[in-house]
């Protein structure tokens, strides 16, 4: 579904030094509880053999996918893709924290805030966007590894960065009709891998690849067992009463049954 704005993160992996200032800025801006973060930096550890070594840090957060699998499973529509901004947001007043969406997200970017009983995730700091500011993580990034902007605007910082990029990597997932089309674009991700050997060029580290969306037993049972059975039961009883009602209409009402 095309939206008015097409916000995206562009993250230059080569510029990230794992300082994690973005995590702190995010937690402070969004009152994230101490035992969770909304954004992460994946530490690839030192790879390869001396002297060809590589140490990559991959910052990530909610990819604000074009067709997110998480909103598909939300029963009440508490999590949704915003029709204007295109961001994937959570209405925490409607959310009951059941975690269907947490299981369904291929990128594992959602968590349950058990104290409030709701699901929480990156909302690209919509409260800051509304007043014309960048998200807290982007504003605080010292190395300018994180960029954020509207891809629909050809002159935005992210559009320009993508045009000038040597390599762009997107952690897409496509299987069994599920195709989220994530909106985090990584710059220089494959180069950092290709230092190791020419074989690894174009390879993305296994650990940051998306996993299969997982559907909970409750949700699967609901969809695949409860709904068909109840639809059949309701159809049957409806047909029975419809049959007798039609019969009644055709035969006319008898005042006394004797």
């Amino acid at each position: 579904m095309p939206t008015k704005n097409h916000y995206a993160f562009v993250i230059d992996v080569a510029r990230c030094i794992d300082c994690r200032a973005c995590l702190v800025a995010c937690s402070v801006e969004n009152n994230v509880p101490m035992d969770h973060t909304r954004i992460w930096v994946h530490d690839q550890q030192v790879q390869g053999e001396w002297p060809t070594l590589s140490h990559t840090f991959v910052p990530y957060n909610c990819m604000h996918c074009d067709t997110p699998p998480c909103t598909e499973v939300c029963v009440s529509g508490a999590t949704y893709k915003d029709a204007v901004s295109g961001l994937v947001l959570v209405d925490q007043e409607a959310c009951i924290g059941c975690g269907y969406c947490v299981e369904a997200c291929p990128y594992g970017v959602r968590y349950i805030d058990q104290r409030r009983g709701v699901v929480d995730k990156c909302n690209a700091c919509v409260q800051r966007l509304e007043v014309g500011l960048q998200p807290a993580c982007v504003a605080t990034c010292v190395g300018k590894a994180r960029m954020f902007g509207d891809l629909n605007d050809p002159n935005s910082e992210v559009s320009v960065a993508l045009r000038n990029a040597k390599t762009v990597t997107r952690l897409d997932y496509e299987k069994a009709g599920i195709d989220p089309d994530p909106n985090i674009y990584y710059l220089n991700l494959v180069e950092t891998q290709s230092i190791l050997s020419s074989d690894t060029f174009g390879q993305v580290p296994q650990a940051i690849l998306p996993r299969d969306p997982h559907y909970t037993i409750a949700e699967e049972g609901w969809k695949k067992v409860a709904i068909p059975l109840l639809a059949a039961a309701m159809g049957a009883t409806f047909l029975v009463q419809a049959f007798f009602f039609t019969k009644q209409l055709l035969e006319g009402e008898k005042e006394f049954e004797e």
Partner: protein
Amino acid sequence: MSHKNIPLPERQRLRQKMLKKHNLANILTHWFNVGSWLLLLPTGIAIISSPRLGITPIWWQEAFRNIFGSDANLIRFHYTIGFIWIFVILFNVLVGFRKYFLPFASHRMLLDRDDIQWMMTKPLQMMGFMKGKELPPQDAYNAGQKIYSYFVVICTIGIMVSGPVMVFKSLFPPIVKQIAQPIHFISVFVIVAWLFIHVYMGAIFPEEKEAFFSMFSGKVSAWYARAHHEKWYNEKLKEEVEWEDRVQQELLESPHLTEESSGPD
């Protein structure tokens, strides 16, 4: 019990005579329940907007979200009415436990051998078989109504437990909230599946017209009771005869009254 050899004046008398079937407490609880369901069912269906489940049409979801202003407001309305419903139903059951609920459960809900026979014959008759076979006499509620009442009781408990689990969301672990949702859904729609039959039989089906009006007045005619709920009718007759005997006995035993009644003669 055949009615073929009942003479005309007796038939007219039976049509005139009214027997009390429902007490006011049950009538009011029933209609309160109806009102609550009319508010809860459409809003509840509107909340379910998961495209993967694909139950509710988009226009329905949007209409209700527009009426209430937002998703969260729609949910708040649903569970506020829900809590009022839970409170009133539980209040009625608990306050009237000994006076209304226990007699109702023990005299009107228990299945007996006739009921099982009825359950085996009636569906076949509805499909057009065994037309000649006579149905066994029924209690105040027939076997179908009795079985429906079990489903309603169990599913009502299911709704009343799974609903608050989803409202008091910080008290329960995610797995409980995950399971509560299908339980809530299943409990509601098991009742709704039966509800088609219940509403049709109660409000539209011509032979049961009296049953519908009895949910307002509490009374059915003796003729209707004799034809549809014979066992209950016989019980009522027995009560009446016992009452008559008792009154006669009292009149005989009271010398004051006999004197007075013989006085003016």
